[in-house]
Every structure is written in structure tokens, then in C-alpha cells.
């Protein structure tokens, strides 16, 4: 069968390498009686099915975290509106932190230890970073996080990969926040260079910097990095298959 490597490469977009190889092998076996057209139809159908499930969960999780972040920025969650301070804005902190657990919960459900552990990180990190001005909320978030931690601790002890994966997720979440910050700093630098020559007007310069940093391109960067995080976390969840004894 020509193109089986390409078919396997396609299947690897939605499955682990071991699973993709096994599926491609199955399709190859069946295509002997059903023809090559069936082989490609089965491959594309499998990729479309897996891709649709992933995309649906990712888009829903990202949209959910965007809505929460927008509500936070407008002060609709019992907080002070946060329109001028970009670093502490919900967009930069909440979107990456909430997308990963929301995705994992949608894909694998509340029973999944990875999803719960990811939620724990979101609660702890988000609560610590965003609840600073609110004494009551400041304690509720970490308390919820600690409760979740104790709830999933037994699972984590049994499976070290969960801990490793969650740490990777946390690193990636911090990375995306810094990525957003980098865009802000870059915008600030550009604005400073342009405005210091043209206007010499610090207030305008700051306003332009904020406008640039909240540009939709930030959302695109956030969405892309969130996509990479959830792809990695989905892959890390499943270890390589064990080999059958001969």
C-alpha cells in the first residue's frame, strides 16, 4: 500500500505514536479485502473523528476561559475592574490557567486525576495572582486548591506521571503568561520609541502600549500556546503501550 507512512503520520495527529501505528496496521490488513479507497476513507474518518473531538473540547475550554477572563477584567466577579493593568489582567493569567483544566475535564471528566490536578494548579496559581485585593476571595481560592490537592493526593502517589505532567502544565502556563507579558513589553518598547520621538507625551505612550498589548494578536498567541499545552498534556496522559509476552 502506497502512502501508509503518510496515513500513519495523519493518525499520529490524533493518537499516540503506538496507537497510530496499530491503527494504520489494522487498516492495512483490512484494505487487502476492501481496497485502497476504503483504507483512505477509514484513515480520514478516524482523523476527522479524533480531530473533531479534540477541537470541540479545545474551543469550548478556550471560550470558557476567555469569558471568565473578560468577566474578571470588567469586575463582574465581585472584583475591581482591571482595565489598565495588563500584567494582572484576567486575559494573561486566567486564560492559560483555565484552558488546560477545562479541556481535560471536558475530554476525560471529573474522575480523571490529571484533570483534577490541573484544576488544583489553576485554583492555587489563579487565586494567588488575582485575588490579591480581596481578603475573602484570597483565602477561598487557596483553600479550595488545598482541598482539591488532598482529594487527588492518593491518585498522584499511585502515578508519578501525573505529577510530572502537571508540573509541565504549570511551567507551560507560567510560560504563556510570560509570553503575554513579552508582547506587552514589546508593545511598550515600540510605543516608547515612536512616541518619545513624535509626541514626547508619556500618558499617550502608556495608553497606546495598553491598547497594543490588548490587541487581538495576544489572543491568537494565547490560543496557540494553549493549544500546544493541551496537545502535550493529552499525549503525556497516556504512556507507551506495554509489549505482549510472546
Amino acid at each position: 500500500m502506497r502512502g501508509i507512512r503518510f496515513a500513519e503520520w495523519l493518525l499520529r495527529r490524533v493518537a499516540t505514536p503506538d496507537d497510530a501505528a496499530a491503527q494504520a496496521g489494522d487498516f492495512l490488513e483490512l484494505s487487502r479485502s476492501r481496497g485502497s479507497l476504503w483504507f483512505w476513507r477509514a484513515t480520514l474518518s478516524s482523523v476527522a473523528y479524533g480531530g473533531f473531538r479534540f477541537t470541540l473540547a479545545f474551543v469550548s475550554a478556550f471560550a470558557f476561559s476567555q469569558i471568565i477572563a473578560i468577566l474578571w477584567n470588567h469586575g463582574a466577579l465581585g472584583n475591581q475592574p482591571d482595565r489598565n493593568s495588563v500584567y494582572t489582567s484576567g486575559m494573561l493569567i486566567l486564560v492559560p490557567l483555565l484552558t488546560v483544566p477545562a479541556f481535560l475535564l471536558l475530554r476525560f471528566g471529573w474522575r480523571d486525576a490529571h484533570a483534577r490536578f490541573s484544576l488544583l494548579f489553576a485554583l492555587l496559581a489563579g487565586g494567588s495572582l488575582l485575588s490579591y485585593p480581596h481578603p475573602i476571595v484570597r483565602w477561598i481560592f487557596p483553600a479550595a486548591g488545598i482541598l482539591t490537592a488532598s482529594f487527588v493526593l492518593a491518585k498522584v502517589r499511585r502515578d508519578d506521571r501525573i505529577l510530572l505532567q502537571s508540573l509541565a502544565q504549570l511551567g507551560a502556563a507560567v510560560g504563556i503568561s510570560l509570553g503575554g507579558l513579552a508582547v506587552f513589553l514589546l508593545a511598550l518598547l515600540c510605543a516608547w520609541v515612536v512616541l518619545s520621538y513624535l509626541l514626547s507625551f508619556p500618558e499617550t505612550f502608556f495608553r497606546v502600549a495598553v491598547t497594543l498589548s490588548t490587541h487581538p494578536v495576544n489572543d491568537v498567541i494565547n490560543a496557540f500556546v494553549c493549544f500546544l499545552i493541551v496537545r502535550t498534556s493529552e499525549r503525556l496522559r497516556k504512556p507507551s503501550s506495554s509489549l505482549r509476552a510472546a
Partner: protein
Amino acid sequence: MRDDLNLGEWEQIVLLAVLRCEGNAYGVPIRDEIRICTGREPATGALYTTLDRLEEKGLLQSELGAPLAERGGRARRFFTITTKGKAAVVRAQSAYRRLLDGLDLLREQI
């Protein structure tokens, strides 16, 4: 994880097909078994996704066989049902049996 997992109809079909394949349960015979017994051609994506999900739930476990030349050097992924999987199927089937008891629907069909 709770032990009283509720299984959907499709999940039960896949688990029963794995059981029927007795030690040779990889994608191809599982698909054949479903086709022969139910008369339905399973959608490829749905079958593999369900097998994955059942493994996630701890109802199935899988292992890779040896690479085979007729599969272009690719291994088969063999599935076996776990004790928890068997218990889930038995529980679901018992519920169906209790509901069917006294109705004689199967005899009417014959």
C-alpha cells in the same frame, strides 16, 4: 474511581466483542465480531475512540504484539477485559435481563 460505572449500549457492544475475541482482540477481529453479531459496520473513528475511553476507565487494558511484516512492520494492539470491565458488563446485562423478564419479547421475535 467508583465501581458502579454506567455503560452505554455502544460501550457494552465493544466490551462484549472484546470478550468474544478471546485473546485475539485487536482492531480487525473486534470490528468483524461487531459487524457479524449486530449487523452494524462500526465507524472506524468511533471504535478506536471507544476502545481508548474504555481503557481510560480501567475496563480494558492493552498491549502491543510483535511487529508483523504483513502489516508493514506494525504491531497489533491487543485488548483484554479487566475484572472491573467484566463486572460492568455483567451489571449492565443483568439490568437488561431483569427488564426483559416476563415480557417474552425474544420468543415473539422467533
